[in-house]
């Protein structure tokens, strides 16, 4: 199936988020299609997690639209939002911290069912929970235990079970394996991919690990200082990146250092935010570059993208 042939399931248009006087997301726009995996990469402070939370309205946006199947989550009333949220779930970075320490595993996974499927009997719920536990690789006997009795990897499985029990259409994963040991990361990523394949869930996979994202994403969004600076199909990003920041990021991930002292100063708020670190910067970069489609499906926010293409 070619996802581009259908309408996007989620469309973000011109999203701005401010924390008080500080703007942290600038004019973010992108689309996400059913069943697709989109990787979001960028460094700390680039706005990846803010974007995830803003999409779910866990934090308010200041401007723009969050269109879920054509309906704007920003303007819909709370009961509609509540209903729609069943289709949008999230898995957080800190596996233990995102579980309620006073709730058993069974209660944690049951909570979404109690809210969204109140008609279920206790017996039916228990069957669903048992099946889900098995699906995420936990034993049925673990249902009555508490989060602190589990390892980080197991807690993340519980978080995934809670998120997937309602078979959401979109699962946002915010650094879901970053706090886990390497030997456990692959298990959790594969579990997410299996669940995605079985339930047709789209994944928005946020990670600072470029090597990891490469293996599971169809498309990649690159963020820098609260802006989307490059969007492209996976292989295009890894083999022919255009934005100078994407190139630096990939070089660094491959172990190549490029030291540009930035003094710990906040990224620039006007023009191209990357221009004080960019070796291609010109005076014209003081004007903000728009995210432009340079090639089919390849969007870049850089005044010099066309030159860099050749």
């Amino acid at each position, binding site marked *: 199936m070619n996802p581009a042939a259908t309408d996007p399931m989620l469309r973000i248009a011109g999203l701005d988020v401010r924390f008080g006087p500080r703007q942290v997301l600038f004019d973010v726009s992108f689309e996400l299609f059913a069943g697709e995996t989109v990787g979001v990469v960028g460094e700390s402070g680039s706005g990846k997690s803010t974007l995830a939370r803003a999409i779910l309205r866990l934090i308010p946006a200041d401007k723009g639209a969050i269109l879920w199947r054509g309906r704007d989550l920003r303007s819909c009333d709370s009961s509609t939002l509540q209903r729609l949220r069943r289709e949008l779930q999230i898995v957080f970075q800190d596996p233990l911290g995102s579980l309620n320490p006073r709730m058993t595993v069974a209660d944690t996974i049951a909570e979404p069912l109690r809210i969204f499927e109140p008609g279920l009997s206790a017996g039916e719920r228990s069957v669903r929970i048992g099946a889900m536990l098995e699906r995420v690789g936990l034993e049925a006997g673990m249902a009555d235990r508490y989060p602190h009795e589990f390892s980080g990897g197991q807690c993340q499985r519980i978080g995934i079970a809670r998120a997937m029990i309602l078979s959401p259409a979109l699962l946002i994963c915010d650094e879901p394996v970053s706090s886990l040991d*390497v*030997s456990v990361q692959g298990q959790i990523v594969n579990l997410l991919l299996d669940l995605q394949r079985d339930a047709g869930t789209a994944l928005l996979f946020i990670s600072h690990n470029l090597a990891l994202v490469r293996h599971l994403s169809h498309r990649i969004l690159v963020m820098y200082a609260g802006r989307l600076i490059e969007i492209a199909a996976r292989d295009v990003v890894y083999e022919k990146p255009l934005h100078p920041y994407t190139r630096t990021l990939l070089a660094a991930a491959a172990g190549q250092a490029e030291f540009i002292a930035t003094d710990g100063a906040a990224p620039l708020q006007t023009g191209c935010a990357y221009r004080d670190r960019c070796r291609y910067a010109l005076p014209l970069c003081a004007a903000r570059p728009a995210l432009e489609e340079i090639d089919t499906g390849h969007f870049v926010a850089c005044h010099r993208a066309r030159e860099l293409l050749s």
Partner: protein
Amino acid sequence: MTSLLQVAGLTVSFSRPTGSIEAVRQVSLEVEACECLGIVGESGSGKTQVFMAAMGLLASNAAAAGSVRFAGEELLAAPRARLNRVRGSKLAMIFQDPMTSLTPHLTIGTQMAEVLVYHGGLSWGEARGAARRMLARVQVPEPERRLNQYPHELSGGLRQRVMIGMSLLCEPALVIADEPTTALDVTVQAQIIALLRLMRRELGMALVLISHDLGVVAGLADRILVMYAGRIVETAGAVDLFERARHPYTAELLNCIPRLSGPRLDRLPTLAGQPPRPQEIGAGCAFAPRCPRAAERCRVERPELQGDTARQAACHFPLLP
């Protein structure tokens, strides 16, 4: 010739209300002058505790047994005053989080100068000058201005540069760096590794680099030591380890790391199960429950490190002889 650092039969145990647990079990290792030894392991493998014991920085409920000799001097039994003389001058440590390891209410200049006043007997004026020169050396821009700044005014990358500079002030013979790049962004990580490499070339100190990230260690270490469940399971030259792992754990760990190049995988390679908790470790090989090569022998008889000094593995059925 004796090694710079000699750890012999080190065991670190923590007393808990539920009983005592051993985080480090019978670890012996040596660090030669001028070499870079990488210590790799997952959380709970004991890699940090080995060196916390060496530095006398164990938590109050921990006890260390065995021997840690630095330049021939036993550190485990050393009185605190003596330990304070050694650490910070000849033996320095860099931690993961430069924010919490710098003192928040002292300026960078004061913290750095203090080291030289205390250990080097310099006057405050001289020490400040030396601190400024060191900041320049670790490529902190505008060193003069930094002396008057507080840690929170610097970015994470600059703070780690300050930490590295501070550790080098007394020209230590050995620097222990515990996850020095883990808290940093990937572009900054690469810069800090390049800086450590440069400092080693210029100053010739020995470096112990502790990390869960094999990529970070690969970029710096001459020799690598792999820990699992409190014990050393393999040690080899860096290139040798990456190309010809002998212990199945090392091989599986290397296999699990997602690659930036090469074929794209639909499923990531995995290692079943999870590292055991200290209280779960039985008589046999701690890795046996997860090991694809494990046999009955592995479950009952713990393998000792075997091989010549250049390459050793603790496995009954190593991948290579």
